[in-house]
């Protein structure tokens, strides 16, 4: 009894003192920033027609059908529209580069939500996941890695009262847990609904989806859908992967494999179905499970760049007590993410 109590308090201590998957969520932030940036950039030429006040959804109609808020409602002036759109680009770029810290991320979310709602017909599951997950990232230390060094943020951080700063780690861990639980929910729900579908049961769903013109890559898709074995294996493989993803994540030994499988799965979706933004958003969220691997990759890269070594390692040790040694770097992130297992299991 006493031992198990001690065990629980140890775990609580660990949970409130050691930030988990810092590199992973930083990667998530970079990639989500990039996808957000590309949402603006890839539609830059068409922006006036798709999002503008005199475009395909005129300002008055847009205001009538809006749910929630959008900064684009405030004025019907084309100049105002250009201003908000370009501010959105700047905010997304700042998030990707790691400038502006979490307040910058909140600004990015506001602008991104606004442009999403300006033309909701364009959205897919990836955009949905992005706007759900960014508020969770606001809880985390997602600017501790892959960020351009800016003195201002750390100077501001030092002004925050001590008892508030003490909450930073548990909030960080909660944020990571929520991202992890959210992505598991996405996979399991989409997997279970597929189990219910006739074509998914028959092993022919891939054949049907890949022929739909909107999701077809001419010259390539037929190589898959005309091959019976690939169709059946691909269909069943997709369902099995989605349904068992949480198991793959909860067992530490399987975790990198589950995340790697997910990345391959989504890269093929990006290639064959043209859903680049969707695929990269999913991959971004998978990165929270790959924190150890990312740490090792970073160390390897730093080993190749002797010039930046000294300054970088000084900065990380100041940012938090992150282990710089690959052996220990793998361990804490591996153990820590096991702890969310209880709440995640309930979800499934």
């Amino acid at each position: 009894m006493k031992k198990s109590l001690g065990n629980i308090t140890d775990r609580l201590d660990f949970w409130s003192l050691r930030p988990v998957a810092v590199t992973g969520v930083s990667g998530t932030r970079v990639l989500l920033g990039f996808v957000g940036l590309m949402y603006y950039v890839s539609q830059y030429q068409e922006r006036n027609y798709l999002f503008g006040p005199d475009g395909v959804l005129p300002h008055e109609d847009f205001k009538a059908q809006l749910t929630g808020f959008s900064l684009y409602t405030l004025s019907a002036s084309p100049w105002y529209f250009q201003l908000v759109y370009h501010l959105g680009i700047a905010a997304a770029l700042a998030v990707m580069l790691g400038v502006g810290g979490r307040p910058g991320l909140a600004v990015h979310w506001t602008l991104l939500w606004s442009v999403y709602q300006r033309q909701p017909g364009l959205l897919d599951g990836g955009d949905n996941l992005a706007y759900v997950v960014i508020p969770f990232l606001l809880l985390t230390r997602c600017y501790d890695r892959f960020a351009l060094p800016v003195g201002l943020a750390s100077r501001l951080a030092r002004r925050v009262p001590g008892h508030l700063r003490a909450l930073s780690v548990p909030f960080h861990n909660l944020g990571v847990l929520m991202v992890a639980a959210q992505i598991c929910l996405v996979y399991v729900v989409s997997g279970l609904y597929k189990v219910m579908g006739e074509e998914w049961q028959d092993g022919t769903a891939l054949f049907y989806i890949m022929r739909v013109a909107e999701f077809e890559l001419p010259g390539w898709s037929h190589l898959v859908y005309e091959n019976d074995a690939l169709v059946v294996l691909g269909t069943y493989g997709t369902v099995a992967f989605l349904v068992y993803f949480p198991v793959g994540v909860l067992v530490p030994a399987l975790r990198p494999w589950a995340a790697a499988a997910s990345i391959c799965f989504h890269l093929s979706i990006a290639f064959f179905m043209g859903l680049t933004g969707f695929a990269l958003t999913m991959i971004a969220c998978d990165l929270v499970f790959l924190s150890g691997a990312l740490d090792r990759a970073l160390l390897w890269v730093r080993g190749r760049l002797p010039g930046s070594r000294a300054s970088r390692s000084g900065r990380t040790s100041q940012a938090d007590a992150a282990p710089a040694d690959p052996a220990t770097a793998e361990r804490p992130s591996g153990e820590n993410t096991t702890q969310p297992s209880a709440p995640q299991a309930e979800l499934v």
Partner: protein
Amino acid sequence: MTMAALSQAPLNPAKLVYGDRVAEYLDPYFSQNWQLFAPTPLSDDRGVLARAACADGSVTQYYDVSARGVQKVQSSRFFPSRENRIVSAHLQNLTSSEELLRRIRQQQTNDKKPLLPPLPYEKATEADSIEGLSRYAYDQLPAVCDGETERIQIRMYVHELPPWSKRHDPSAEGKVLVHDFAWQKTGDLR
């Protein structure tokens, strides 16, 4: 997180009781929809044809106004254009209905009873989508009628692709369903 999970569950007793309250809490900022090509994957090509009535009284042929958007998606694999989704989102609105209503109507069809007529909100969504599609079609056809278009009519088509069992049959073409919507005055669209 439990609420998010409940919102994603299939229609069940708990969802019938608590679903609205949960949706109130999650929507719109944490709303979720993760069915992603399930349970029934897409298996048809959908699109919109449009024709115009000119000021001189003549009526043009039909033009496929959705094909260009689809071509734009297919021509790039790196963040392709999403313009085609304007059409597909409206078509989705026109062809799908809320799960509970869908089941009621399915039951009525099976029992050969009169169908529940569209609810007021369904009519409003439909009208919005028809207007949206007509406006898009009008914008895609700037040159017809020498620019003097008075009215525009859209025709939705759903081309069901041949099923798996006929995959080796080159003569299999699949059914095409067509639905014409009412003429819209261009003055109301722009």
